[in-house]
């Protein structure tokens, strides 16, 4: 029964997302906000893999997004590299840094691991801000080119317009979510889950806990890198402020509000955090105060976020036992 629900939801979301440029043809602002939300949803997928499924909290993940962002931007702007290879190299760069950071840091216990990710994120931000010759310092890198037009027979796609770049972002985001599903619903995902639930037990059943944590960390860093790259390509500029501590914290907020451990949690969270307030025209501070209260409610009453609450309601309505099994 549950399988068909998630299939319906998935198809509906994909259909809506694919048709958005048509639906909102006369409202480019909506497409603008949606694109931005998707650019954030991608790194949140990385954080979901890390926290929702493996149980590791990282408070510095935008740092990895920044590595991917600056790498891709520099390759496309200064080396004239086309989009796809630049993006892949950006992902590899951020994944590689994630690997290097993970190796010494993942053996720390949870409190300490969280703090070290915070420190790493801050150091990365300081580097972005101060290595002027590479990153352009506090002003960043302006004038990042959009990907070249893409032609397949008579079918043309350009990426200079909002609707064009939206489509590109939608495709990349869909692929990232597809990757998440592939990983989570596999033996690898089940092992990650076991690490989250009980490390000692996972170990006793044959799971190399450290290797799994490291792989999850590197993958999530690479995914964050893709998100960062898309964002700076969209905004046509890379600046350190995009990748500072508050941004990393926002990723966590989006994930928790959306629902950690759920496949569409990142999407719900990103849309809720970025898109909804724009459409509701709420003042910036009030929006944030509102989110603060949402977080408090979640922390005390609904740790599983929006997706979790929805799942709970479904179960209550269908009369089933309300004990929740964390599946996607």
């Amino acid at each position, binding site marked *: 029964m549950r399988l068909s629900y998630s299939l319906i939801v998935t198809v509906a979301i994909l259909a809506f997302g694919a048709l958005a440029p048509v639906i909102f043809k006369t409202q480019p602002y909506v497409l603008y906000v949606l694109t931005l939300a998707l650019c954030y949803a991608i790194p949140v997928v990385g954080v979901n893999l890390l926290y929702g499924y493996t149980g590791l909290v990282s408070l510095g993940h935008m740092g990895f997004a920044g590595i991917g962002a600056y790498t891709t931007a520099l390759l496309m702007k200064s080396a004239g590299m086309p989009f796809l290879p630049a993006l892949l190299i950006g992902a590899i760069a951020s994944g590689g840094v994630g690997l290097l950071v993970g190796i010494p*840091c993942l053996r720390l216990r949870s409190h300490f691991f969280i703090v070290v990710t915070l420190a790493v994120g801050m150091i990365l931000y300081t580097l972005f801000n*101060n290595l002027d010759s590479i990153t352009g310092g506090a002003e960043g890198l302006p004038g990042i080119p959009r990907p070249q037009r893409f032609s397949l027979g008579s079918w043309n796609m350009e990426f200079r317009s909002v609707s064009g770049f939206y489509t590109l972002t939608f495709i990349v985001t869909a692929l990232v979510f597809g990757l998440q599903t592939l990983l989570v619903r596999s033996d690898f995902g089940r092992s990650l889950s076991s690490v989250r639930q009980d490390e000692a037990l996972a170990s006793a059943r044959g799971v190399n806990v450290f290797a799994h944590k490291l792989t999850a960390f590197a993958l999530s860093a690479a995914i964050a890198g893709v998100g960062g790259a898309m964002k700076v390509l969209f905004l046509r500029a890379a600046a350190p402020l995009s990748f500072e501590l508050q941004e990393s914290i926002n990723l*966590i907020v989006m994930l928790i509000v959306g629902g950690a451990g759920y496949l569409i949690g990142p999407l719900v969270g990103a849309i809720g955090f970025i898109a909804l307030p724009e459409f509701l025209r709420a003042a910036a501070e009030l929006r944030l105060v509102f989110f603060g209260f949402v977080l408090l409610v979640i922390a005390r009453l609904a740790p599983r976020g929006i997706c979790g609450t929805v799942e709970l309601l479904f179960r209550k309505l269908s009369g089933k036992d309300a004990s929740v099994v964390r599946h996607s």
Partner: protein
Amino acid sequence: MATAIFEQLINGAMMGSIYVLMALGMVLIFGVMQVLNFAHGVLFMIGGYFADLFFFHVTGSYPLSVIFSMLSLALIGIVLERAIFRALRQNLPMQIVASLGLILIIQNGVIQFWGPAALQMRTSSVSSLVKIGQLSFTVQQFVIIAVVAAAVVTLYLFLMRTRLGTAMRATSQHPEAAVVVGINPNRVYSITFAIACALAGAGGALLGPLFLIFPQMGDGPMLKALSAIIIGGMGSVPGAIIGGLGIGIIESLSTLAIPTDYRDTVVFAILILMLLLRPWGLFGVRVRGEC
């Protein structure tokens, strides 16, 4: 050169004292309740705003303003503990979520009420100067050092000599045993939070006049205080004091050798090294981990 070093030592001792105030609060909450309160920075910040409020609108006396600010923060602390943190005691991820929620509410609430521009609070202790050799410092800098020193002594006496303080120590060392001997844990938690928040508020009230009072003023100090309690050892009060002072002094001295942009990096680099080599800190107890 010697004068430059001396100047930075005083600055460092002063900032270090501020960090100590924050670190003490955070280490008490962590030791007694196993709660990591990331929101301590915004509590520090509204300490400054309340002091400004009391100073300009209630009493023209700076010391009284500080005290009223501390009392207000203590009350806020009790409310926060009851409503939010008591239930999250063993749940680190949700503590982070709740802390983030508080930060969003308080920081943006302050911007709504007081506006985004910084406040300036000129007290006599900031206007008057002390001259040592060629250097001049404000009285406030020494006031901070002296007040924090007094606070540390008071806290020590409280923890060691009073029933309530002993109850706090007992609860942090062995919660179940403390309950068995009749200590009411909820009361201990409330008192701990009250004291911790009062100390944070004092920090904001003391630092505010020296620089400016603005919504983000607590963010940096909170991170330094967090670093301090980790370097000092997560449950250790002496560790928090030495960590806080140490960070303040090292930070200030490092500006003599490294560009100020990288000043924070020095602290974080030390933090990372500590975490990798000796995570239980200088004074912490090494716990044998699983697996």
